[in-house]
């Protein structure tokens, strides 16, 4: 499972992407986010306020209950600010 981070999540975590293999009980975006938060102090800081975090699964915006599976590309980022 490929995880991408953007904007201040990337800065707090210190990497733009990482390969992870979460345990099988991690089945959705919210579960993955909570599991990732335990990986380092940087991860914990980045994921501290879930309300400020959006996600995409395979390059489509995804809600917290969206399923995740091995092979997916999953991105976490703040609310978008383009335009």
């Amino acid at each position, binding site marked *: 499972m490929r995880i991408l981070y953007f904007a201040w999540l990337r800065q707090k975590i210190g990497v733009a992407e990482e390969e992870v293999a979460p345990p099988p009980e991690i089945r959705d975006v919210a579960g993955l986010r909570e599991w990732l938060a335990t990986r380092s102090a940087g991860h914990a800081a980045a994921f501290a306020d879930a309300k400020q975090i959006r996600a995409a699964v395979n390059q489509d915006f995804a809600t917290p209950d969206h399923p995740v599976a091995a092979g997916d590309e999953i991105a976490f980022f703040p609310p978008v*600010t383009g*335009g």
Partner: protein
Amino acid sequence: MARIQVQEALFDMAAESAALTAGRVDVGGVASFLGVCRGDDGLAAMVLEHYPGMTERALGRIAAEAEARWPLTGCTVIHRVGRILPGEPIVLVLTASAHRAAALESCAFLIDWLKTKAPFWKREEFADGDARWVAAKHEDDAAALRWSAKPE
């Protein structure tokens, strides 16, 4: 099919507009919106980050939604990324249609949706060395929500 570009380079607004009318006589109006980097509070530069791959996909979907809602003859969205100076353009949206209302409404729709549905993030760098990520605006969400129902 809309023309979607994500690029660091500046763009040529007149050439983009001309491309929507070149060789055809069914276009009655071309509406455009050019978003420009303001220099508020001593801003030195805006740095735009995006999600390569998803960005083009998201912009393509937003443009396809506009083409489904209005009878457009053409649609162009160009969004810059990287370092942008105050006074420089950030984004260009162009819509062409036989009728002006379709061009004007779809142009407003595209910029409103783009602000809330395309994966771009702005970081402001100030002359004094400070930097901060721009927070999403509630008014942008409200503007995007205006379009959640189909137009009459």
